[in-house]
């Protein structure tokens, strides 16, 4: 288990959510919050200035939103891995986010349980702790796109879909045909 510090930037337009994220991440000594952004524009700027390992970013923000910011960052060739943290549990949001360059997608309602593991997973520092299997038809809390990860120089080992909340995009989208998502 690597004990290297994972440098994280947070981006969310809701102060209460930022405070919640700080509270959750404070439990993980290897995670250091190095910056906070209140919109997509600031997130892009901070990613460039601070070169964080992980950017935890809200999807819907005023002005430059999460998707546009993710596109900027991946187009700029920055090594920062983007974990989208959102209220939206609909698959339709996920696909364009992964296309925009995000490597992970986490739903806010499960952030208190999953965020630390999601950051560890996305940063590649550690394999996720295994959880009980996701309920049938439920979207895994974290979704990662291996091809994106490879492009970003990260070769993660994934647990299988059945193992629970961490899902691999390809496998999950195929399983989706027989197990529709509830919203």
């Amino acid at each position: 288990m690597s004990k290297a510090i994972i440098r994280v930037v947070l981006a969310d337009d809701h102060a209460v959510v930022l405070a919640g994220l700080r509270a959750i991440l404070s439990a993980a000594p290897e995670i250091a919050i190095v910056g906070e952004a209140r919109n997509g524009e600031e997130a892009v700027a901070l990613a460039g200035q601070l070169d964080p390992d992980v950017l935890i970013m809200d999807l819907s923000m005023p002005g430059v939103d999460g998707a546009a910011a993710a596109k900027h960052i991946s187009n700029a060739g920055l090594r920062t891995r983007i974990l989208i943290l959102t209220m939206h549990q609909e698959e339709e949001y996920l696909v364009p986010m992964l296309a925009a360059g995000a490597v992970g997608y986490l739903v806010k309602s499960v952030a208190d349980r999953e965020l630390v593991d999601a950051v560890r997973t996305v940063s590649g520092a550690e394999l996720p702790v295994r959880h009980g299997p996701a309920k049938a038809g439920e979207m895994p809390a974290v979704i990662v796109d291996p091809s994106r990860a490879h492009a970003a120089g990260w070769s993660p080992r994934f647990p299988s879909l059945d193992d629970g909340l961490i899902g691999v995009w390809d496998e999950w989208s195929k399983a989706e045909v027989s197990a529709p998502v509830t919203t």
Partner: protein
Amino acid sequence: MALLGLSPRTLSEWVRALLRVPLAAKVAGANALIVLAALAAAMLVRRGAPASDSVDTQLLLVVGLALAGSFVVNTALVLLALRPLQALESAAANVARGDFDTRVRPSLLADRNVTQVGGTINLLLNGLAADRARTRQLAAEIVGAGDRERAYIARELHDSVAQTLAALVMQLGAAERDFPAPQLAARFATIKELGAGALEEVRMLAHTMHSPVLDDLGLAAALSHLARQQSHGAELSIVVEAPDAVGAAELPPSIASVLYRIAQEALTNAVRHAHATTVRVSLSTNVRDATLEVEDDGEGFDVAEAYARRPGMGLFTMRERVALLGGRFAITSERGAGTRVFATLPLEEAT
């Protein structure tokens, strides 16, 4: 009268029947009667007088010709005078059929009274058309304002209340972890459950009021989400055919929102009432219009009968909303033969 093979009528019935004969026929009939009576009188006079009086014969001929001439001229004048009334009549018939764009055509033959009647009818029709346009405009504004209000409340719920509840759950999780107290574990679990439950309820409520997918990602994505939502837990397959290009920016919000609502109503009908096993939702657009079709293989229903019974049924209220945007809407269904819902909306009229 009974002898003539007609059903017996009272005198007043005959008078009323005669009065209902068109004016042209009355005038022609009266003229013909006068001509016949005059001829008969002349014959009688001649029979009493000495025979082969050539002057009498010539006079009789002249009078007869004059009477016949008068009959022709009278009939022609009356027919010409009545032509403008036909214009009034055809305009009235058009209005009765529901064509409110019709107007009484001015006629050179019309006398002052008829012209005035025609003019007044046209004025009334203009007023009616203006009122109808205003009513439609107002209805469109009310529907639009309602939609905007719903979208606003849904966004607020999603952006503020839901975010705060999510933050609450995060803080509770962190607090529980930072200050582990076995005697509080059950309480913490309950509070977190309440928070998570409230968050889910707010999210569902916001969703029901207005689809965020529609706003953020456009109609094609919203339709595919809707299909997945509706087919969940039901034994049916919903196929969505929508060009990916139909994104948020491609369709005006008023049009996207109406088409989404139609798809929603048609799918609800197919799943809940028709017990369909396959539904096809197809969306197509070109520069002029956007067209949505929803076809199912369900039980089908008698459209006219259903409309008479429940005019407020979701699908039927869509007809009005489509009309407000100047589009066309059709429900084709038959018992045992599935249902097809069709809507096409012009893109240039949308605001």
